[in-house]
Each structure stands twice: as C-alpha cells, then as structure tokens.
C-alpha cells in the first residue's frame, strides 16, 4: 500500500517527545493509528447498486490516571494534530479522575516490539476491479437462474487492507499489515404468497484466495437452494423441546449463553449473572469451552486463510492467546482487557478489542467454541426420541444481567422416534444462562466440529468474531412459535 508512509511519522524522536509530554502527568497511555483502503461491490438482481472505493485514516489516543480514562479521536495524521490530541486526552483523563469513585491502577505489562503481517497468497492489490465484479456477477447469476421461484438476489463484496501502528507507555511499538475480505449473498424466493429468504457469507483474513474454497464458490448456489427449501417449511409449534444444535448453532449458543456474561467488564460492573460463579461448576462435567483468537485456527479447520475472529494482538497491545473459559464444567477464566486484568490482579488474556482506531477497546470475544467429545451425529439423532434438529442461525442476543438469552435458527427439523422429519422455519430458542449449560446432555465428536463467522455488537461497536463447536444436544429448551 503506497500510503504506508503516513505512519512513519511515529518515529523514535516523536515517540520520545510524547513520552516526555506524558511524564508525571499520566499513568498509562496508548495511541492507535490506521491507514486503510478498500472496495465495496453491492449488486441487486444482477445490477450494481454500489461500486465504491475508499481511502481513510483513523487515530485514537487514550490516557489513564488512577481509574479515569480520557480518549481523543482525530482524522488528520500529522505531528501537530497528534500532539494536541495527546494533550487533550491527558486533560480529559485528569478531569475524569477528579470525579470518579473507584480508583485503581493499570498493572505494567512487558513491552512488545514487533511487526505482524497477514499472509496473502493472492494479495488484494493484485486483483483488479473487473475481476472482483466478474466474481460477484457470477454469484448473482447462479442465484437468479437457479429457480423460477427466486424473486430477488443480492451479493455484497467487501475487502480492505490496512496498515496499523500501536504505541503505549509500556514501551510497546507494534506494526501490523492486515487484509480482510467478506462476501455475502442473500436470496429471496416466493411461492403462493409466501416469501422466504436465506443469507450466507464467507470471510476471513487474507487475500483473494478466501474465495477459492469450494464453500465460497458454491455460496450463492447454497443460498438459493436454502431460500427455496424454506418456502415449504412449516411454522414451529411453541413449547419445551429437546434440541440438537449443529456446530454453527452450538457456537451461537455458547457465544450468547456463556461468552458475553464472561466478559470481565460486565462482571466488575455487576452486570453479569456469572459475577459470583468463578471456580464453580456451572456446566455438566464433560463440557470444555475455549476462546482462542490466535492465528493458525484457519489451518486447523482446513482453510487456506485465517478466520474472521482471529487477531495477532488485541487493541491494547496484548498478544492473542488461548483461554479456557470452562474446564470440565467449572468456570475457570473470564475474558479480560488491561483494565479488568489489573483490577482483578490477573494476567491479561488479550480481549481488549475495538471496532477501529477511533473507538475505545472493550472486553470482547474472539473465537469461542465448545470442545468436541464423543457422540457421532447419527447416534445422536437416533438416541433423541422426540425433539428438534436445529441448523445454522439467523441472529442471537443475551441479557447478561438476567441471564435470559435467545436466538433464531435458520433450519429446524422435527425429530420423531429418532428420525429426522419435516422442516420448520423461524424457530426461536430461549433459555437461561445458568440453566442451559447443565442441560447439555450430549457433545458430538471432532468429525462434526465446525465454525461460523460474523459481526458481534456491544456498546455501539461491532467487531469480527467466530464461534463454533461440534453437534450438541440440549434438553428442555423453550421454543417460540406462531402456533
């Protein structure tokens, strides 16, 4: 990227200058700056509704004094504006500190001086816009021509490359070159007055090779088929049911029903139902839950790129790492950022993440999953006399304070006498965090392990996340329905 030079203004002399400004004034500070470029292609019914490109800079400067944070966001990257924003953030931190009730310190961590680069087999800069358009048009055509029942198709392609710098008062200086790509496909179909839609996406960190997998190539074909399949689906009947969740749904369940309540900022602010559960058995004994956003997950899953929820370092300069949340049913760790780990006097585990350099880091998940065990999927269905087999999700959310969560499945099949039966749509599942983990009665083997990628929202910020697991069975779940 030719704009790389813009970050070279953070040279040693300038950093020394900032360190001097901060001395005796603040206890901790950090600066994040990003220069990025990217493309968006948005097609509906095989016509382009947006073909765009951008070039942007973002910078956020944070200062901390004794429990108070100041944050200043700027867009023009030059030494004068950075210095003046730096001073502003110090002033804000002082003001905040003068008002707060809860004093605490940030524990100093080892500095990191390193450069990271996402490995791209087919760098985005080597792929011209015509080629990207050709790919999108092809997906649109496949979706539109797959059936007469299809009324509307949409395909969105987004990519971006960025150069990033992170500097903090521990002496860290981290450079990163990142590259991401995401392709979304949405298909609507209609039959006898009934409209249904399906949506699928592929995405990851890397270059154009992300779209070379079989799954990516068949994206629109799959979406179209799903949309048509849903036309004949039945509306669900509400009540209490045993469900079998596929890996995507199992991942959503663990993200919503456990992950959010493990975010240590919510624990400290008394907003998490898990605030007094550390070290206690909160799930059945055979359950292990992990969050591991470190690089290399893609390879383990057989993908030629890094998955969407992975990162080298978090947005506070802490290396991404594997964290065991639940071990043999016992709650072992919360997810931390610099602040929560300092306040609980624990090592940080790399979960301070922000949606961009212009936003402040919060405690967020990365790649959250349930470890596989020993059930084979066929056995699992046969063993389930009556219930619902739920596949893939539409969305989910949770209230970490009350513990009530809910999510919606894309496909749900009735199971009768151990056999997969008719398809239902728009099945909504609900439960309570502390109850549901003890209702998981079977966990599938490693052959069934899978993951999904998406965007997770919290406090007005969206970050890339992944979650996953094997097939799992959960007893006694509340299913919402129209009938």
């Amino acid at each position, binding site marked *: 990227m030719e704009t790389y030079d813009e970050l070279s203004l953070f040279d040693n002399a300038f950093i020394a200058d900032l360190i001097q400004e901060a001395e005796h004034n603040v206890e901790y500070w950090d600066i994040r700056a990003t220069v990025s470029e990217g493309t968006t292609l948005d*097609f509906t019914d095989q*016509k*382009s*509704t947006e*073909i*765009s*490109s951008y*070039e*942007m*800079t973002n910078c*956020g400067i944070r200062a901390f004094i004794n429990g*108070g*944070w*100041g*944050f*200043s*966001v*700027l*867009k*023009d990257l030059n030494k004068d504006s950075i210095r003046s924003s730096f001073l502003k953030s110090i002033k*804000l931190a002082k*003001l*905040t500190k003068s008002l*707060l*009730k*809860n004093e605490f310190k940030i524990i100093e961590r080892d500095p990191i001086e390193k450069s990271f680069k996402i490995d791209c087999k087919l760098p985005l800069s080597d792929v011209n*816009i*015509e080629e990207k*358009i050709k790919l999108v*048009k092809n997906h649109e055509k496949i979706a539109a021509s797959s059936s007469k029942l299809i*009324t*509307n198709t949409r395909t969105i392609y987004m990519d971006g490359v960025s150069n990033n710098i992170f500097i903090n008062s521990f002496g860290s200086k981290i450079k990163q070159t990142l590259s991401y790509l995401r392709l979304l496909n949405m298909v*609507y179909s*209609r039959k006898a007055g*009934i*409209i249904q*839609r399906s949506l699928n996406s592929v995405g990851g960190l890397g270059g154009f090779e992300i779209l070379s997998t079989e799954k990516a190539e068949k994206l629109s074909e799959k979406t179209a088929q799903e949309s048509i399949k849903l036309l004949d689906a039945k509306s*669900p009947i*509400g*009540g*209490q049911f045993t469900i079998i969740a596929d890996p995507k749904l199992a991942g959503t369940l663990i993200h919503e029903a456990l992950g959010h309540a493990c975010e240590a900022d919510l624990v400290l*602010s*008394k*907003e998490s139902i898990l605030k007094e559960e550390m070290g206690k058995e909160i799930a059945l004994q055979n359950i292990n839950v992990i969050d591991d956003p470190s690089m290399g997950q893609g390879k383990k899953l057989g993908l030629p790129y890094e998955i969407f929820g992975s990162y080298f370092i978090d947005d506070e300069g802490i290396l991404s790492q594997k964290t065991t949340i639940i071990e043999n049913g016992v709650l072992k760790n919360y997810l931390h950022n610099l602040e929560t780990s300092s306040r609980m006097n624990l090592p940080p585990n790399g979960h301070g993440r922000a949606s961009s350099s212009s936003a*402040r880091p919060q405690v967020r998940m990365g790649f959250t999953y349930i470890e596989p065990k020993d059930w084979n999927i066929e056995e699992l269905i046969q063993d389930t006399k009556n219930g619902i087999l739920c596949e893939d999700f539409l969305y989910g959310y949770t209230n970490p304070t*009350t513990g*009530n969560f*809910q999510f*919606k499945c894309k496909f749900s099949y009735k199971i009768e006498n151990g056999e997969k039966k008719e398809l239902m749509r*728009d*099945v*909504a599942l*609900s*439960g309570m965090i502390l109850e549901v983990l003890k209702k998981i009665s079977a966990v599938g083997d490693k052959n069934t392990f899978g993951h999904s990628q998406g965007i997770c929202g919290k406090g007005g910020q969206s970050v890339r996340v992944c979650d996953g697991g094997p097939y799992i069975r959960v007893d006694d779940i*509340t*299913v*919402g*329905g*129209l*009938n």
Partner: protein
Amino acid sequence: MYEDIDIFELAKFAIKVADKNFSNYKCAEIFIGKSEYLNIEVEENSVKYSEIGRNHGISIRIYQTNGSIGFAFTNKMNKKVVEKIVKNAIKMMRVGTPDPNFKNLPEKLKPYSMVEDLYDKSIKSLLIEDAIDHVKDLINVCTEDDQAISQSGDFTANSNLSYIFNSNGIEVSGEETLFNISSNMIVKDTINGDVSNGYESQMKRMLADIDGTKTAEEALKNAKRNLHRKKIKTKKMPVILSPKGTINLILNPIASAINAEMYQYKRSFLVGKREKKIGSDLININDNAVINGRVGSNIFDGEGFPCRNKKIIENGHFLQSGLLHNSYTAGKEGVESTGNASRSSFSSVPSIGISNLILQPGTAQNDELIQNVKEGILLNSTADSPNIATGDFSGLISQGNLIQNGEIKHALNETMFGINLLDLFENITSISKEYKIYGPYSAPYVKIDNVQIIGAQSLKN
C-alpha cells in the same frame, strides 16, 4: 476547527476533476460531512471515561448515461487525494452495470420548508464540565436508591454539518445537533437477592431538553418492575404494548416495510397491500420531517431534496402514496422523491430512512387499558424483530409483566410470543391518548387481543 479546509472549494474542485476526466457523465454529486462529538461514560455508577473526537470526509457519486454508478470517499481532505478518489469513482462507474431504472439525481425544483430548532448553538460553548453535570444527574438517582447497586450510562453531544452539491443545480448545507443520554440501572432485591436491569434513553436536538434525572428514574422504574421474574404457562391472551413495545412491534417493522427499496424488491410483507386495509381502523401513521426541533426532522434529505410530511396509513388503510422514497426508487416508480434519502455519513450511498414516524394517539386512558385486562401481558420491550418479508414474528419478551385483574404483577422469565404482523394490526383494539417520543418515533400504548404467549412453565406443574 476546520477553518483550514474550504469545503465549498473542495467540492467544486472535485466536480472539475470529474468534468475533466469524463465529461459526458449523466450527473454527479459531492457530499461533504463534518462532525464533532463529546462523550462521557458512566460505569459502576461513576464517571469513568471521557472522549472527544471529530470526523470529516468527502464522497463523490457519479452516474453514466446508462445508469451505471460509481462511488468513492476519503477523509483525507486534500486536493491530491480528492483527485484520486474522483478518478476512482469514474473507474468504478465505467465498470458498473447499466441500470435503466436509474432516472436522475434530484433537480432544484421545489422550495424548502422552514424547519426550526435543528441546531443548538449552545454546543459551541459546551465544555466537558457541563456535560459531566448531566451525567451527575444519572449518578445521583442510583446513589439515592436502596435497591440500585450499579449503573452504566452515557451522555453524548454531536454536531454535524453536511454539504451537498450536485450537477443538476442542488446546493445545500445545514448544521444539526444531537444530544443523547442513557441509563442502564442494575437493581438487587434487598430481601431475596434477585438482580435485574432496566434501560432508558433520550435523544434530543436541544441540550436543554436532556433530563438525566428523569432518564435514570425511568430506568430504575423499569429495573424494579423487572425483578421477581417468573415463568408462566403457554396461553393466548391480550398484550398491552408500552411505547417502547409499540416501536419494537409496530413502528420499526412498518419503517422497513414502507421503505420503497424493500417494497420494490418485494422484500416487504406489505407488497400488494397498497390501497387495502391492513389492520384496525384505529391505525393512523404518518412520517413527518418538518416538525420543529424533532430528532427525525430535516430541511433536506441525504440527496439535498426537500423534506415534508407524508401520510402512510389512514384508518387502517395503507395508502397508495405510503412508500418512502429516495430519488432512485422514486424514479423507478415514476413518482417524486418523498425526501427520505438517508445517509449515515459521507461514506455511505443514500439509502431510505424514516423522518419522524408517528402512530397517532387514540382516545383511551393509559390506566384504563391495563385496568380492563383480566389476564394479559404488559410488554415493555423485545430485542427481536420480525421477518419483514413475511411479517412473521416470534421472539422473546425481554422486559414484560403479567397483568392480572387490571393490576401489573410479576415480571416474566423466558417468555416468548409469536404473531404475524398483519394479525397484530388487525387485533389492535385500543390506543392510548398518552404517547412518548423516542428519537424519531412517537409511540402510544397499544392493546392487542389474542396473542399466542409461549411460557416456559411446564404444563405438568
């Protein structure tokens, strides 16, 4: 703060670059946005975090005569980068697909309505210390209550300037302010230790209208009402929607369903229902952009087109003219834009959005609505949204209470409900006189009969 950038000159420069590089384009538009904000956050009922920031950027949207579109944006406000992004937009336009549905960008034909109080000039002298006073109001409410154990919340002040210039003669600029305060109150029952939360927020154009105390008190009331949650049995019963519930289940879905883009692509459950009755006679909805001082009010929309008041649903009839348009969807249908082009920032192409969507209040007293229910649900909020294409809704009641013999009883746990929106509209039997304004919505209490409630209490018990 931006005196160094002459946005008018930069916009004209961008058009010149377009003229020079592709003189026979059909039309082009430059959009420049600038904003500044200030934000204070409360965590654990204490000031924790303060932030100031600014944002700016320029985008160009350009069309070829065959309707093909190119778009590019940057926040690097210098001629060198602007020249590059204009050239990029032209490149994008040349590789795009022809679109015969595209007619034209707006032309300067109509006068603009006067809409006042969209900009509060007190923001110019607003200090972070003043902002903190509002946050202190939140904190006091929590400190003074025995059951309140924690609160998170925030106060934000925003000022935005937008400037739109197109090759058809539109040239408008305007400034607006937005102030926001919110509270998420955590309460713990002193006797049984039960914990719950309640949320409330305000969004206003004028700083003087922000009331932190009232916001936190309302959040506290919601939180207390959400204690002692119990599961209930599956049953059909009437539901009273609070104003927030009305937004979740009526106004928000209607906002999506009357979006002309959703409608034209047949992604709306109201497709084919224009000039037809879609629900109870009691439903009257309009989208009004020209009310002084309201959050959804504007003089011009995201394409510089004049904004106005539009009737959407009259006595339960969805009007022929009840769709919200930008210039693209209006051109496609052969009507005039309704001034609903919406643009979250310079970096997005215009989509379609509501102005102030208003469900007209009815005649019922709010208390009577509840008093007349023998057994039912008071639904304060759901985080779920219906499938707009089908109108089917099934989801969780995030905050709701059981009503028994006209009295509000315990809160609900793990209680879901399902209904098709057209049935919901049909089953509306009463609308309250009282209403609340949340952001761009104006919502009364609404009574709906015969809703399928799915409880988690087993039938055996």
